[in-house]
């Protein structure tokens, strides 16, 4: 076979499979795994707990991405933004730092601890962390009034888009994301997750179905302090992407999950919706079901469906969402038909709440936990120091007032 461009021959597969099944297909059973835990009484939870929860569900992943996000991680720097990056080389790092200095006062920077593990082959990216405050001058804008958060979002989007070989993986206060392309146990070992203690953890092991596997594409996907772990797929991605792009977010990670993080930021931080109203906008009831609600709820439900029809996440999903501002919060939500699993549990002393794809993840670390399943489209909401505010089995708008 000859090609016109002889300098760049087409890549040839090393072996041609005819009737013999190629090796990749033995991993076809799967579905991502998600696990999270939150301290309801404020005690710190060590990373080995979340590692155990996630790795027990190894059958749900295929080694193409895993990650952990820890909240309440930097008590001594909890008012500073913690920006973590993957860099391909020093040049990308310098360019990104230059752009950061324009808007941020970098107070401290350090390598994010990681070490080679036996069965996760290099190359690894440069993984770097910056603690910074937003410079007052960057809040001045000739257009609409900008908050500190908007400055950080714009900066992150700009670096992700414009700097080749640089991707911001987390940019929130008092939290950090540890992720990469590998199995959940490999990522836990690579970052030495047990060395960290925090008030909340969310985690994800990946089984990519329709998007590429790469380091920055692993979950949790994060913007500001929002972190999202997602099992499923967002078939309405195009519509959702239009909504967030109209609001200034740029989709750069090639994964449907990133729009979920941006929608949470848009609806809850920018538009000020209560969490369960935002959850309803993303996983709304059918109009037939809405017609049977009480008049006040019906009005609210219809209003949410009309106003935020582009925030409706169609397709099967169960997601864990974390945020640290104004308080560390865990949200567990399944789609409106509950096509992906979600189990919630609480320790017998009431001090820790758990959620996971499979009950075994909870039982492994808390054998006597009380467990329950959330309802379709009904979020479980828990806050550090406040307890479980919503179990995920209530009426959709219980406690919500317009």
């Amino acid at each position: 076979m000859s090609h016109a461009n002889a300098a760049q021959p087409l890549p040839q597969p090393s072996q041609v499979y005819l009737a013999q099944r190629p090796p990749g297909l033995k991993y076809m059973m799967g579905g991502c795994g998600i696990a999270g835990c939150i301290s309801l009484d404020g005690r710190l939870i060590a990373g080995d707990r979340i590692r155990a929860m996630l790795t027990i569900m190894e059958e749900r992943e295929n080694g193409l991405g895993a990650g952990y996000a820890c909240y309440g991680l930097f008590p001594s720097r909890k008012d500073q933004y913690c920006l973590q990056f993957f860099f391909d080389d020093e040049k990308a790092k310098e360019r990104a730092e230059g752009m950061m200095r324009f808007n941020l006062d970098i107070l401290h920077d350090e390598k994010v601890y990681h070490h080679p593990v036996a069965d996760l082959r290099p190359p690894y990216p440069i993984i770097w962390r910056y603690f910074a405050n937003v410079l007052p001058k960057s809040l001045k804008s000739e257009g609409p009034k900008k908050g500190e958060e908007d400055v950080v979002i714009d900066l992150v989007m700009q670096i992700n888009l414009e700097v080749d070989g640089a991707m911001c993986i987390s940019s929130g206060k008092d939290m950090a994301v540890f992720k990469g392309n590998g199995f959940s146990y490999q990522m836990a070992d690579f970052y030495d997750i047990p060395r960290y203690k925090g008030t909340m953890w969310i985690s994800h092991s990946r089984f990519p179905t329709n998007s590429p596997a790469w380091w920055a594409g692993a979950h949790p996907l994060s913007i500001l302090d929002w972190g999202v772990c997602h099992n499923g797929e967002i078939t309405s991605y195009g519509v959702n992407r239009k909504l967030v792009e109209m609001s200034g977010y740029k989709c750069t990670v090639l994964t449907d999950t990133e729009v979920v993080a941006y929608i949470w930021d848009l609806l809850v931080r920018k538009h000020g919706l209560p969490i369960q109203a935002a959850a309803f906008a993303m996983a709304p009831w059918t109009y037939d079901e809405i017609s049977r609600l009480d008049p006040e709820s019906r009005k609210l439900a219809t209003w949410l469906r009309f106003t935020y029809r582009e925030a409706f996440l169609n397709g099967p999903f169960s997601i864990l969402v974390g945020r640290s501002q104004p308080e560390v919060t865990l949200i567990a939500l399944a789609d409106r038909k509950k096509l992906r699993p979600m189990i919630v549990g609480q320790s017998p002393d009431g001090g820790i709440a758990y959620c996971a794809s499979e009950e075994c993840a909870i039982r492994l670390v808390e054998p006597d936990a009380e467990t329950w399943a959330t309802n379709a489209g009904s979020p479980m909401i828990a806050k550090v120091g406040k307890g479980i505010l919503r179990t995920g089995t209530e009426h959709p708008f219980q406690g919500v007032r317009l």
Partner: protein
Amino acid sequence: MQGHGFTAHECDCGQGCTSFEGGTFSIDAGVDGVPMHYRELNCVIRQAIERNVDRIMLRNVTGQRYIAATASKKDLYIGIHGTPGNNLGAFLDGPTLEVFGNAQDMTGNTMNSGKIVVHGNAWDVTGLSARGGKMFIKGSSGYRVGIHMKEYGQRWPSLVIGGTAKDYLGEYMAGGTIVVLGIGSKTPSPVGVSLGAGIHGGKMFIRGKVGQEQLGPGAGIAEMSAEDEKELEGLLGEFVSYFGPVLERGFSCFTKVAPLSSRPFSGKYDKTNL
């Protein structure tokens, strides 16, 4: 070990996780808190079945999938302590499984015959495509339970849930019996919406209210016959024999849901019947 030919470390884990005493073969699926891989566990179970053991006890089960899948020894009993993983007893054909805890998703997937007893909850998609055998769940269940259960030849699957079930119960059901007792239910109806959507065979007995709006296309509320009461009495008797007395009220509080037609989509796809 005599008479069954077991060696000390049958599962190759090197920790002596198996023992054989008084006719019961015990397997510790999580020695020192380290869960055994499901392939290994199922391999040990299969080896025990091959050696004609008829009573197996599993301890410290933590999410291992496919336990006893395709097992077909009629008089085999497997007791499970812990949390068995997805697809417990898939394609089960004869044995009895008893879970002392909660089961995960897809319990009894395409079960052919035998029995699964769960002293706890069994979550989403329990009993999907079952074509025979009996399942008794003491606690509650999740979404899409008993979808596409079917009768086949002389086989007739039965699924009894002590607590509640959610949406799409008995969707596309083509045979068999589902009973939901609603024990501990906080709402008047222990089942969700789209109940029996596309049902064209079998029946459901729901203890509590079922509104017209909960019924899926093809499902209707039917009168309970003497034959139904007899069948229900038998299933409830068996339920009570496993979990103790739980019911005070009689058959009058049950609502029977049955297919409106044996061919609910007739004419929609099949032009020959127009």
